């Protein structure tokens, strides 16, 4: 209950631009300081096989030049 009361009271806070700019300096916009969710991520990030074509299908094996 105390948590709710604190949160509701805090909802009326207004932060000025100076404070908000300072917050942005500490945590740049668009960034995470920690991974907030490790429950799901694209499977290919964890499974190397999903990131690679079979050896025989790779560009060098096919004689492609880039």
């Amino acid at each position, binding site marked *: *209950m105390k948590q709710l009361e604190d*949160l509701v009271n805090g*909802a009326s*806070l207004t932060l000025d631009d100076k404070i*908000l700019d300072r*917050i942005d300096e500490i*945590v740049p916009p668009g960034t995470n*300081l920690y991974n907030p969710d490790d429950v*799901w991520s694209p499977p290919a990030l964890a499974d190397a096989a999903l990131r690679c074509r079979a050896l025989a299908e790779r560009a060098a094996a096919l004689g492609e030049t880039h």
Partner: protein
Amino acid sequence: MTMNYRTLGGTGIQVSVHCLGTMMFGAVGNPDHDDCARIIHAALDQGINFVDTADMHSGGESEEIVGKALKGRRDDIVVATKVHFQMGEGRNRSGNSRRWILQGVEESLSRLQTDWIDLYQIHRPDHSTDIEETLCALTGLVHAGKIRAFGCSTFPAEEIVGAYHVAERRGLLRFRTEQPPYSLLAGGIESSVLPVCQRLGMGVLTWSPRAWGFLSGRYRKGEDAGLSAGRPRCARIGSIPRFRRTPPSSRPPGSSRSWRRASAAPCPSLRSRSPWRIRPSPRSSLGRVP
């Protein structure tokens, strides 16, 4: 406090800008049902009309608490819940398949003691299920009157866009909301998820606005943070070098300021960091309590 209301993601449903999150209701957090009910009623008395839960929170206990507490007031409250995570034993009791969604919604309705869910959310992506299958099941639930609208949670921007186009192509209803993690310490969604939601006219709820309690004011400068207590995952924040539990004098300057920030006000994070940088769509509901 004067409560403000917004339209939820183009659904026409009016919700308070603050939504009561109930993840910690039940065995995982507060096992006292009466106390949880008192919290719900206090929130409603403040003008909050938006309550969010999930099937997996304390194995369904959170939904039961919400259902019990809303008896007699259900018509005035917008109830949101979720499906995806494993519920009990069984291979087909998780995920985003039509099979599980159709079963899961019945179980949620039963626990919530209601005939309809206002917002039914897919808790996480599921790559073993075609998104068309999921959208088709959810569209059917809307037409059957069991849910009023549906959304997603913690979907990457590309999944949200992909689902949007599948819905459009197949004549299905689309995700109306997204619920990502968002706080002063986790602003990653600002780079793509929030702009996508804004462009698609989706409402945004956020979870973990206080970064697993780190921004709750519980952790104060010079005091033992006790990072192994509370929500179990909270301990992980201690693995971030910047926030590792170290004597105050040896913390880097940024850390010190962050700690002050975390303890400066009763609720520095209720509105998260969004309203001033990513101007939210008027359709969005951004705050979550607690």
